[in-house]
C-alpha cells in the first residue's frame, strides 16, 4: 500500500474540461470517496490515477514516485470497473487468477491457486470458483470483480461505482463487506460514487467534485455539518436539505449578507400552531415505514423534513416553524459563519 498525490492535474476531452486543476492527497491506508453527479470528473480522475488517461498538465505521484507518464502496468494500481468487469470466456477461478498470471508477475501456478482461494474466501465466492463467470448473479459478479482487484497487493485500489448496478439490499451488504475488507487489509482506496450513503458510511474522507473541480474535502461529519457551499450542502442528507430565501421565516442571528438558509431536519423545530396563526401548512405526511417525511408549504416554498412516526400533525394543520442553528449561505453560494 502507498500514498497517492495528485498535484494540479487537468484533463480535457476536446472542448470539455473533465478535470480542472485537481489537488488531492490520499494517505497510506486511507479510504477516500469522490462524490459527485454524472459528468463531474470522478471517473476521469480514477482513469488518470490508473494511467488509462494522460493528464494535460500536473503530476501524479504514487508511493513517492512520479507516475505521471508511466503505463498502466507500471503503476501497480487495481481498478474495479462499474460494469463489464468479468471476462465472459473465463471461469470465476480464471477471472480471479487473471491479474496474477500476467507475464509481468512470474508466480507459480501453485501460488496463484493459493492466493485465489484466499481472496475467494474473503469475498465469499469460494463455492463458485468453477462456475462460468456469466452464470453468476449480479452481486456475485461484482464480488468477483472486487476479488480480482484484491488478489494483487497494489499501491492503491481504484473503484468506479462498483455497487451502482446492484439492487438496494445487495448494495448495503457489499458496502459493509467492502469497508470490512478495506480495514482488514489496511488498503489505500480511491472510490467513486454518486451515492451519498456509500460515501458517508465508507469514507475516511469525502471529496465533493463538481464540474471537474474539487469543491471540498473532509471527513463525512465535516462535509455534512460544515458544507463549504450550497452545492456541497445539497449533495448530502436524506431528505435533501431545504434551501430557503432569507427572510421567509424569522431568522434572528443570521450573519449579514445571508441570501439563503439551509435547513435540515435537525435545524428545524416544527410545532402545531397554538393560536390559529402559523408560518406554514402541512401538505401531507409521507409514511415510508421506517421513517416519515413531513411536507410543509411555507409561502411559495416547500419544506421536507423527517418527523416522528407518531406525529400528531395532519394534512391541513397550521404549524409554527423555527430555525435551530441552520446553515447560512451568502449570495455567492459560500457558507457564512
Amino acid at each position, binding site marked *: 500500500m502507498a500514498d497517492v498525490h495528485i498535484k494540479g492535474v487537468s484533463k480535457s476531452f476536446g472542448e470539455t474540461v473533465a478535470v480542472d486543476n485537481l489537488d488531492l492527497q490520499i494517505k497510506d491506508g486511507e479510504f477516500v470517496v469522490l462524490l459527485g453527479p454524472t459528468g463531474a470528473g470522478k471517473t476521469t480522475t480514477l482513469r488518470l490515477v*490508473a*494511467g*488509462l488517461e494522460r493528464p494535460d498538465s500536473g503530476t501524479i505521484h504514487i508511493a513517492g514516485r512520479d507516475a505521471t507518464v508511466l*503505463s*498502466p*502496468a507500471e*503503476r501497480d*494500481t*487495481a*481498478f474495479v*470497473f462499474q*460494469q*463489464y*468487469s468479468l*471476462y*465472459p*470466456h473465463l471461469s470465476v477461478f480464471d477471472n480471479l487468477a*487473471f*491479474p496474477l498470471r*500476467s*507475464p*509481468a*508477475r512470474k508466480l507459480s501456478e501453485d501460488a496463484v491457486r493459493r492466493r485465489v482461494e484466499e481472496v475467494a474466501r474473503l469475498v465469499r465466492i469460494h463455492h463458485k470458483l468453477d462456475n462460468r463467470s456469466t452464470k453468476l448473479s449480479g452481486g456475485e459478479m461484482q464480488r468477483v470483480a472486487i476479488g*480480482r482487484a484484491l488478489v*494483487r497487493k497494489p499501491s492503491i485500489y481504484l473503484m468506479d461505482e462498483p455497487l451502482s448496478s446492484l439492487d438496494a439490499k445487495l448494495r448495503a451488504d457489499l458496502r459493509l463487506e467492502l469497508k470490512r475488507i478495506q480495514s482488514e487489509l489496511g488498503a489505500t482506496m480511491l472510490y467513486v460514487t454518486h451515492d451519498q450513503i456509500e460515501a458517508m458510511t465508507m469514507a475516511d474522507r469525502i471529496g465533493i467534485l463538481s464540474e471537474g473541480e474539487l469543491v471540498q474535502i473532509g471527513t463525512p461529519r465535516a462535509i455534512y455539518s460544515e458544507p463549504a457551499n450550497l452545492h456541497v450542502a445539497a449533495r448530502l442528507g436524506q431528505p435533501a436539505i431545504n434551501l430557503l430565501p432569507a427572510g421567509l421565516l424569522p431568522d434572528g442571528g443570521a450573519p449579514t449578507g445571508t441570501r439563503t438558509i439551509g435547513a435540515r431536519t435537525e435545524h428545524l423545530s416544527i410545532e402545531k400552531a397554538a393560536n390559529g396563526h402559523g408560518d406554514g401548512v402541512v401538505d401531507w405526511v409521507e409514511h415510508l415505514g421506517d421513517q416519515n417525511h413531513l411536507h410543509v408549504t411555507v409561502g411559495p416554498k416547500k419544506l421536507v423534513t423527517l418527523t416522528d412516526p407518531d406525529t400528531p400533525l395532519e394534512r391541513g394543520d397550521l404549524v409554527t416553524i423555527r430555525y435551530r442553528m441552520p446553515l447560512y449561505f451568502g449570495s455567492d453560494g459560500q457558507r457564512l459563519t
Partner: protein
Amino acid sequence: MSLTSAHSVVAPSANSKLVAGTIIVAYALISIVPLLWIFATSFKTPPDSIAYPPKIVFQPSIEGYCNLFTTRTRQTPEYINSLGPATGFCDETVRKRNMVIAGPSNFLPRFVNSLIIAFGSTFCAVFLGTLSAYGFSRFKVPLADDLLFFILSTRFMPPIAVAIPIYLMYRELGLSDTALGMILLYTAVNVSLAVWLLKGFIDEIPREYEEAAMIDGYTRLQAFWRTVLPQATTGIAATAIFCLIFAWNEYAFAALLTSGSAQTAPPFIPTIIGEGGQDWPAVAAGTTIFLVPILVFTILLRKQLLRGITFGAVRK
C-alpha cells in the same frame, strides 16, 4: 381456442407458418436440386450421364471418379488382352472402354493448390483484418472515416474490372501462376470485407476488458490476445467463412492468372471436358469433391456463421 392466441403478435398463425414453410421448401428445392443432380451424375457412367430422357434411377458407378483422377490412353483390344489381370476396380472399368491408365491426372495437385491458396488468403485477410479493425476501433486514427471509406471503396467495382492491369503487373513481377500471387490477390480483395465486418464485432467488445488487463500488468498486445481475441471468435469465424467462400469459388482471376503449377480447381475442372469426349461424370465428380471442404468448414463453424449473419440485428 382463445382470441388472444389467435391474434398473438408473437406466435405465428397456422396460415403464416404454411406460407413460410412453402417458400422455404421451394427455395431449398431450387437450391439443392442442381447439387443433387451433380452428385448423382458423378456416379453415372458416361452413357447414362447423357441419356435422354435423363435417368433418375441408374446403376451407380465410380467411373467418373476413376476418370477424374487418371489420364488414359486408347488401345486396341488385342493389346489390352495381352496385359495381365486388372490391378484394381478403376483399371478394370477403364479397360472395358478399350483404354489403359496412363498416369495420375492433374486434379489432385490443382485441388491442393485450391486448398493452399484459399486457406492461405483467408488466414492473411482475417489476420490483417483483425488487427486493422482493432486499430480503427480502439485508437484515434487520423482520418479514420476516410480511410475506412477508402478501404470499402475497393469493393465498389467487380474485382475483375482491374483484371488487365493486374495481369500486366503480375507478369512484370513474376507473380503469374504462383500460389503467392493468388494468395496476395485474394487477400487484397477480402481484406476490406474483413476489416468492416470485424470492426463491427470488435466495437461491440467493451474496451474496459483490455483496460482492466493493462492495469493488471499486461501489455496492450497481450491484453488484445487474452481478452479481445477470445471474445471476437464469433466474428472471426464468420468473417473467415465469407473470405474462404470467395477465395475458394473464384474463377475469373484464377483462369486468367494461373495455368500450370498454381492453377486452382475452378479453372481446372472445365478442362476435363476436353479430354477424350465430354466426360460429364468426371466433371461432376470433380465438382462434388470440390464442394466438400466448404461444406465441412461451414458445418464446423455453423453456429458462428448464424450469429455472424444476424449480427447487429439485436442491440442490447
